[in-house]
């Protein structure tokens, strides 16, 4: 009698794979818009043509450009003008500390941002100066010299004080680029910073109230409270998050979320932060997975040998 098992096996596997392909890769390709990564090139923004001088930039930042009126640069000993909650009450969101902005954000993006925030952030649908809706960040109109040169000087200054790009940590990247709008409860991160372990409930509640006050201003500013990102690495996946950060409008037209202009490296660090929050055991999973696979192959080989022995007498 002919052995039909290989044929039956092929049929079972073929139908299983067909069904899998239909309900997973194919169905999902039909359900979700596919957004290709632009490799964080920010091709829509003009190229930087001038070489900046950091010392001149520093004078502009603290002087004519008045950056430090709203932004802290703690690294250079310049504290924030107000605390996070008050700042959010004034601007809608706490303006970022610029200490490491030169490393976290793309130079082209920073240059455009300084001159025209709503354009670089891709929120012109929300903030239109012509209609009297100003973005809370005042555009820099120049300090009397050539504006592109001045902007290049400011960027050069920010780059000179920032950590080296390879020193950017996941936490640093996330907190500055995302963490002023998004909480990550599983990492104890709130929009106003990490929640400390309080001994007394009173202190803990006082902190929570500050967070709620901040969130109230933020909700007014954004239209709705930006979501907690604790499990986003599992609910959205790396590709979605990365392309969303790169250009939120490409995924969700009209969203209030600005393009934050991070470099490709910073985006990788943000992803790493989210992996540490929502997929903490990924390394253990891969390592255990390898060992279990090796064991189970050995198990199957021994089962096969046993079957061969037992069945020798049956034919």
């Amino acid at each position, binding site marked *: 009698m002919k052995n039909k098992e290989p044929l039956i096996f092929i049929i079972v596997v073929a139908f299983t794979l067909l069904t899998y392909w239909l309900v997973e890769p194919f169905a999902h390709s039909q359900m979700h818009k596919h957004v290709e990564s632009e490799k964080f090139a920010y091709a829509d923004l003009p190229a930087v043509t001038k070489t900046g001088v950091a010392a001149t930039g520093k004078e502009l930042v603290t002087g004519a450009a008045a950056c430090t009126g709203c932004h802290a640069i703690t690294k250079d000993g310049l504290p924030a003008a107000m605390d996070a909650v008050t700042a959010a009450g004034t601007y809608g969101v706490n303006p970022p500390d610029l200490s490491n902005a030169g490393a976290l954000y793309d130079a082209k993006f920073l240059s455009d941002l300084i001159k025209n925030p709503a354009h670089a952030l891709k929120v012109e649908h929300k903030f239109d100066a012509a209609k009297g809706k100003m973005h809370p960040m005042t555009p820099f109109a120049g300090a009397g010299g050539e504006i592109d040169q001045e902007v290049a000087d400011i960027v050069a200054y920010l780059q000179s004080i920032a950590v080296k790009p390879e020193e950017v940590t996941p936490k640093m990247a996330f907190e500055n680029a995302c963490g002023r709008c998004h909480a990550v409860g599983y990492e104890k991160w709130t929009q106003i910073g990490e929640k400390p372990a309080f001994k007394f409930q009173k202190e803990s509640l006082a902190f929570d109230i500050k967070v709620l006050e901040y969130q109230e201003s933020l909700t007014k500013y954004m239209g709705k409270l930006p979501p907690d990102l604790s499990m986003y690495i599992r609910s959205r996946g790396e590709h979605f998050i990365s392309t969303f950060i790169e250009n939120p409008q490409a995924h969700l037209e009209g969203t209030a979320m600005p393009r934050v202009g991070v470099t490709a490296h910073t985006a990788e660090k943000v992803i790493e932060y989210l992996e540490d929050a929502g997929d903490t055991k990924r390394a253990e999973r891969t390592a255990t997975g390898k060992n279990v696979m090796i*064991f*189970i192959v*050995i*198990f199957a080989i*021994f*089962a096969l*040998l*046993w079957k*061969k*022995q*037992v069945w*020798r007498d049956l034919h």
Partner: protein
Amino acid sequence: MQNISRRGFMGKAFGAVAGVGAVGSLVAMKKTWDPLPSVKAAGFTTLDMTKYPEGELITEKWRGKPIFVLKKTAEMVASQTATQKARDIVVGGSHFMLCIGLCTHLGCIPGYNPAEKAFLCACHGGQFDWSGQVTKVPPPRGFDIPPFKIEGNNMILGEVGPEYQAMKDSGITL
């Protein structure tokens, strides 16, 4: 015959491989039963030892257990016997009785009678004096002392400091 024994061998070999798998999964199961890392991380409590009133028993909490803290009066310190003194803990010049407030018999919480300056365990009648020594059976020993470390006027419960290590080594506490 040889054939039969070989068949038996393959069956046993397969059984052994399956057994290794079962033992391997037991390792994962054991780890699942372990106290959670978050529970272990919360196992440290810091007490500010300057805030205790003299001669009054205060109950703190450490790892879910009651901790008796009694700042001894000058009278108590002066009258301490050698064994009572051995249990004495000195922080910032003040003398304390500090122990886990569970009867060493079967773990009930004894009540403190300020008039008699003694503890009585309602469960089985065990008694302890104000220094934590047992004065009446069934408890087999005085109150246990939690691991502690003195840092200035603070006391960190859960960490082992030299004073605690000395008490443990001399057998004053388990």
